């Protein structure tokens, strides 16, 4: 539900532009990308159990944006697996522990998680998109067009700010409304 709501919010208010004056372009990411924050939050709470829900909502979003077939599958996979891998990497390198997440957390570790997840998300999508063999003849055009640079400079800050803002606002709201009482592990 969290992921669905953020996708809807992002699409209607930030990315879609209902007036139709702006044409969506894959090389220009949203300046604040909230869905990544919702992916991280959901993965932090439910871990592997969130995969099916995340996959379905990301797949539907990819269909809505009319992504090419191989991009649709791989981008969905990066969206779903990226936050989980980031959590595992941080735990493996002893950079933080998220096993007691909703009850105990450290803000610095959450910021580091957002940074790692946004790097993973941006670089994963960047390499998949620019290694596309069908576009290999257009690479010169992409380079001249600064598409690759635009991609990195829009996706990475957007992912980072979006995920940090979303997680901190969500934790603040959960604290005010005392939502931890509703959380049941297993």
């Amino acid at each position, binding site marked *: 539900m969290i992921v669905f709501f953020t996708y809807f919010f992002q699409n209607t208010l930030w990315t879609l532009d209902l007036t139709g004056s702006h044409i969506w372009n894959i090389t220009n990411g949203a300046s604040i990308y909230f869905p990544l924050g919702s992916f991280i939050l959901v993965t932090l709470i439910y871990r592997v159990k969130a995969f099916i829900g995340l996959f379905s909502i990301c797949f539907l979003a990819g269909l809505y944006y009319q992504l090419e077939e191989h991009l649709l599958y791989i981008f969905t996979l990066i969206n779903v697996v990226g936050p989980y891998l980031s959590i595992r990497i941080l735990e*493996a*390198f*002893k*950079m*933080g522990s998220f096993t007691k997440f909703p009850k105990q957390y*450290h803000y*610095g*570790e959450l*910021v*580091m998680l957002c*940074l790692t997840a946004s*790097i993973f998300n941006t*670089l994963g999508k*960047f*390499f998949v*998109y*620019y*290694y596309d063999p069908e576009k*290999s003849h257009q*690479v010169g055009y*992409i*380079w*001249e067009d*600064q*598409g*690759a*640079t635009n991609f*990195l*400079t829009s996706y*990475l800050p957007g992912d980072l700010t979006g995920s940090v803002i979303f997680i901190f606002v969500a934790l603040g709201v959960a604290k005010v409304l005392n939502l931890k009482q509703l959380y049941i592990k297993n």
Partner: protein
Amino acid sequence: MLSYSKDFIINNIFAYAIVMIGISFIYPLTFFDSANQYYMLAFGFKILAFLIYGISILPAVILAKLTYMLYISDIGGDPVLAVHLSLLSALAPAVAMYAMNISRVDIRNLKSIDFRHVIFFILLTSVISSLLKYIYLSDMIALDALAASYLGNYLLGHFIGGLGVVYLIAKYIPNFLNILSHIIVSRS
């Protein structure tokens, strides 16, 4: 205060020497060839200087990079490009170190350091450094390269170079010093 200034100057001189030793490994190559290497040893020595002395050696690293950019590399002696690239190159480990400190990991205390933190520090620094340099270079210069393979090489070169140098020095220098001390003791 006087002792702190003395330590600061001595640390900076040693850090400058360490970074220049690293730069000597890329001396025969052009700037863009060195960026495409699969092992950037200079990056490893820069990381090592930061791990040993902490963030206080930032001026020495900037100065060493500036020396390389202006007098050794083949970027044409453009002072603006040299200053910008030196700053980007020196600030990446400092930013990574600060980010790790936010996450309650003290990378500066070598006595209680975990090698896993060092690996993560190298990984994070290589990502930040490659992204900063790539974005800056692609904005300034028309590079004749494929975007993804160029950035991929950059990332891989930074990571292998950093990890290789730090691992080899952390593993073999203490052993070498140990053997040396044994020889000295046995002779005396």
